[in-house]
């Protein structure tokens, strides 16, 4: 009898039993993975399907992802058409979990659909159309909203943990407030008429709006295709006429074009910007990713 009692206690205290007690969250965004971990604390078990080394625009779930989603109680997606597969994913797995399309809970900025992402024919929009910009996390105010949305959803799943989630969310929101303050102070080092970002990926509209920047996204600079000489001339003209000090290509696949632009304009090539979510190493957290981007921009444009 004693052996049975000990076995029962051991079973209840075992990691697997405790894990089963946790809220199972499947996340398809590196930013939302961090939010879920920070807000849920030890009351959640978060599976990040999209990892920092993956391009969320290109991500396709594997069978192992389907299995995890099938068991999840909460599925987090960035939304704003970033993950075209998730609706079908939920149908395919038959999960009873809540699909939370976080980005759809706040207003969108529009961007031109010419930045090289493969949205696929199911998107229903043509190259050059105005589409919703899915990169909402580059606005810290939006990320603050996302924290509240995740907090409220976790509290619905486990009302007993409502206070814990509220306290965790408040602590994380405090860190975001401090980050916002740091960003404003750093950006204030740049004259407002020099806040011009030439990027190869039109992903920084939310950042630009929040911090007084104008974006000039260059189509073709990061694709494998050579942009036309007319396009290159246009880029050079923009950089010269706007007095842009640096350009920020995310992946330099056209070094000749880049060399020509920098030779003609004397614009510097800025450090890599993290456009599609968290990076690795120091940029592996939301704060680290944001600081890395701001440091790269300020140091290049100063």
């Amino acid at each position, binding site marked *: 009898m004693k052996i049975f009692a000990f076995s029962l206690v051991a079973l209840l205290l075992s990691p697997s039993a405790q894990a089963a007690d946790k809220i199972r969250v499947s996340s398809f965004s590196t930013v939302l993975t961090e939010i879920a971990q920070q807000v849920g604390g030890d009351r959640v078990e978060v599976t990040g399907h999209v990892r920092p080394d993956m391009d969320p625009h290109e991500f396709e779930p594997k069978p192992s992802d389907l299995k995890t989603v099938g068991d999840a109680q909460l599925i987090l997606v960035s939304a704003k058409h970033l993950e075209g597969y998730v609706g079908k994913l939920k149908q395919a797995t038959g999960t009873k979990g809540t699909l939370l399309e976080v980005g759809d809970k706040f207003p969108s900025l529009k961007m031109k659909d010419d930045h090289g992402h493969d949205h696929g024919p199911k998107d229903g929009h043509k190259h050059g159309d105005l589409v919703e910009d899915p990169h909402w996390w580059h606005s810290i105010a939006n990320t603050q909203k996302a924290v509240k949305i995740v907090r409220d959803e976790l509290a619905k799943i486990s009302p007993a943990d409502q206070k814990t989630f509220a306290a965790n969310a408040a602590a994380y929101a405090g860190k975001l407030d401090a980050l916002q303050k740091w960003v*404003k102070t750093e*950006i204030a080092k740049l*004259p407002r008429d020099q806040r011009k970002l030439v990027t190869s990926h039109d992903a920084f509209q939310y950042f630009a709006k929040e911090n007084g920047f104008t974006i000039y996204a260059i189509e073709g600079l990061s694709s494998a295709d050579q942009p036309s000489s007319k396009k290159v001339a246009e880029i050079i003209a923009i950089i*010269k006429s706007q007095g*842009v000090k640096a350009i920020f290509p995310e992946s330099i696949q056209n070094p000749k074009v880049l060399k020509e632009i920098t030779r003609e304009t004397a614009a510097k090539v800025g450090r890599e910007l993290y456009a599609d979510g968290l990076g690795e190493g120091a940029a592996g957290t939301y704060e680290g990713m944001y600081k890395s981007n701001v440091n790269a921009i300020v140091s290049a444009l100063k």
Partner: protein
Amino acid sequence: MRGSPLIRALLAFIVIAMLGWPLWRLTSSTEAVATPVSSVPATEAKAIGLQLTFTAVPKSFVIRHLEKDLWSEPTPQAEMEREVTIPFPEKGVDLIVKIEWPEGAALAAARVRLTDPAGDTHEKSVWGQGTTEEVLTFP
């Protein structure tokens, strides 16, 4: 044509070199000295008016613009004003206001009133305790 093959080869080399040099000049990519990036003229510095009003006299304050101290006072008063000269682009300016409030004092506020080069006045407020540092954007 007669003559030593060596001389003929030398003559041929000279002819090729004479033709080749201008051709190489025309076709080679030169590492040109880059032209200045900006054709945009720098924003001219103009006089602006700053007026500060504190609900509680602070221990110290400093107003910074583009990493330079624009105005600081060792013995602040409840109301002060000063004219400063800075570039004031159409898109406006960011001023960093840092205030050291008296220890143990209640929540206090500072009103910053800026009169731009066109003569228009803009106001922003800062609230805080202890040390307050905020970026204020004008207009």
